[in-house]
């Protein structure tokens, strides 16, 4: 590490920010030197920059020097807001924030140069925190009405105060409708795929319909299912079953077709029958495809259940919560519901990915990682 790594000149935006106004307090523009916290933040950011760049350092050392400066600098907007400073025409402050973002960008760039697994988890986390931070100070700084987009802290507050309602919604939508529908739909798709594999006639007849269905917005059957199965969870589960059936069927069939002739010949030379070949060779080979279907379905299932709730539901459920609270302009709780849905979706997806990695560790796409 004899040379300094190149750095975007955008970080120098911090310097001209100093001569521009910081914000408006009681109608009067205030400058940087009139506000102690602003000076402290500026010093911290510049100090960290100097310490990190004075002489060439290893990536991780530079990150450790820079990150505290960025964090202290980033606290400035909310500190000023708490003091009652209006930030909407504080040009200097926003330029300062832009400079900080360039600095953070450099931090992320150096982190990706670090060896090991940890940086690859920290970088996306930093990026996510940056997005939430920009959302927060953007909404509060420019005083965007909460009816349009609530700031993240309001959403977190709603998450804590409305926990009981959110839990009930979660149980109604996810545990009752999504999980049951998902399991039934995937199991049915899998079973029919095995059946179609046993009888090629069925496969040739069903596959074109499977491809046809994938071009059709299946969500449209939601009103019909609500009409057939009533307002409670069975209608939502039915929508989920229909939505998840064909992706699972198509993926399983595609997976079963991946076994090579030479492998099949080997099984035949072992005098293995159809079922033994299926269980010991073809299903393991089909696993990546099956997991692909399961992953696609996990998102589809959540969407299907929530959309079906728009067409009629008892007074509980995520879709119900979203549609009624939007009508009452109570957006923080709507966003809290979205957060719950997002976390649920990510958790299911992540769990499936983990399971896939554990079960198909032998597959070429995971080798050497």
């Amino acid at each position, binding site marked *: 590490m004899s040379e300094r790594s190149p750095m975007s000149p955008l970080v120098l935006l911090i310097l001209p920010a100093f001569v521009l106004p910081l914000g408006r307090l009681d109608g009067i523009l205030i400058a940087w030197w009139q506000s102690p916290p602003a000076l402290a933040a500026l010093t911290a950011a510049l100090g960290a920059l100097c310490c990190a760049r004075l002489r060439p350092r290893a990536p991780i050392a530079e990150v450790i020097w820079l990150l505290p400066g960025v964090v202290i600098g980033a606290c400035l907007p909310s500190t000023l807001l708490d003091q009652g400073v209006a930030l909407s025409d504080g040009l200097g402050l926003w330029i300062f924030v832009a400079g900080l973002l360039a600095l953070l*960008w450099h931090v*992320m*760039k150096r*982190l*990706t140069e670090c060896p090991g697994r940890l*940086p*690859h988890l920290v*970088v*996306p986390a*930093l*990026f*996510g925190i940056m*997005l939430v931070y920009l959302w927060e100070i953007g909404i509060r700084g420019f005083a965007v009405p909460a*009816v*349009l*987009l609530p700031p993240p802290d309001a959403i977190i507050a709603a998450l804590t105060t409305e926990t009981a309602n959110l839990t009930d919604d979660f149980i109604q939508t996810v545990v009752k409708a999504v999980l049951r529908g998902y399991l039934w739909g995937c199991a049915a798709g899998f079973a029919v795929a095995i059946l179609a594999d046993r009888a090629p*006639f*069925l496969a*040739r*007849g*069903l596959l*074109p*319909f499977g491809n*046809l269905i*994938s*071009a*059709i*917005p299946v*969500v*449209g*059957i939601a*009103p*019909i299912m*609500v*009409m*057939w199965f009533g307002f409670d969870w069975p209608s939502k589960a039915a929508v989920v079953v229909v939505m998840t059936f064909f992706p699972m069927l198509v993926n399983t069939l595609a997976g079963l077709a991946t076994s090579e002739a030479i492998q099949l010949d080997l099984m035949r030379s072992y005098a293995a029958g159809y079922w033994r070949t299926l269980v010991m060779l073809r299903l393991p080979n089909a696993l990546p495809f099956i997991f692909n279907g399961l992953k696609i379905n*996990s*998102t589809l299932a*959540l*969407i299907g259940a*929530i*959309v079906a709730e*728009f*067409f*009629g539901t008892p007074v509980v459920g*995520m*879709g119900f919560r*979203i*549609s009624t609270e*939007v009508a009452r302009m109570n*957006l923080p709780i*709507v966003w809290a519901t*979205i957060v719950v*849905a*997002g976390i649920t*979706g*990510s958790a*299911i*997806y992540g769990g499936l990915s983990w399971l896939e990695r554990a079960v198909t560790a032998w597959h070429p796409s995971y080798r050497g990682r």
Partner: protein
Amino acid sequence: MTTSGLRAKGPILIVGLVILVLWYAGALGLNAPQSIEALNRTGNAWTTQDLVVRTMTMKRPVLPTPDQVLNDFCQSLFSYPLTSVRNLAYHAAVTASSALSGFVLGLLLGTLLAVGIVHVKTLDSSLMPWVIISQTVPILAIAPMVVVIFGNLGFTGLAPKAVISMYLCFFPITIGLVKGLRSTDPLAQDLMRTYSASTAQVFWLLRLPSSLPYLFASIKVAIAISLIGAIVAELPTGGTAGLGARLLSGSYYGQTIQIWSTLVMSAFLGLALVGLAGLSERLVLGRAGSKR
């Protein structure tokens, strides 16, 4: 039809026939209770034939028969002027326009992200996980809220629907294009380096052309999703126009036949859009000299 053609089409025809028969049987079974009740109410004696006829011709059946759906489909397509709200083609056109504009926006955003991710290493490690997480959020489920927010901002009509379609579309395009842009032949890349080609030249002359097959595979997926996004986004607009609005009004007033004919229309629209993508693929890849 030749024998081989028959052999290929036979299973499809038979499975289609089975579905049709099951459909009629289902209509008979599901509509029977209501029909029996109605027949009993008339007080006259009735035969099985009366019952069957009645289950097949109900005004608001639990499950309409295929011929009822087809009849309603043709009627709402041909017996009203094209600009009438009662014409199904009008609603299909509204939905198709928002789906297509959302698709174009999604194509632009997806391409932009993919190019950034391929060329900037920091973006690859910081943005890529969020692109994947963004799709585990059931955006379709919050589509109505996005529409309301945009309505508050003063954007109504096409814009909010297009935004939702865009959000759904960009993902398959980004994923497919990143894979495509990275799967250039290493030999060709070395050749470009010996020509001392700039990054831009490598992109336009090598990476982009070789990513086209991946791009078009993604486009086919994306255009089908954009239609779903447009339909769901139309649910909360209060039954003004579009296939989604027609589904919702059909569900409110118990017009099952209308729901089914709308579903058939959306199926045709979906097939047409995917067909359009396939056609453009053949045109572009044919010109690009792909061996297909």
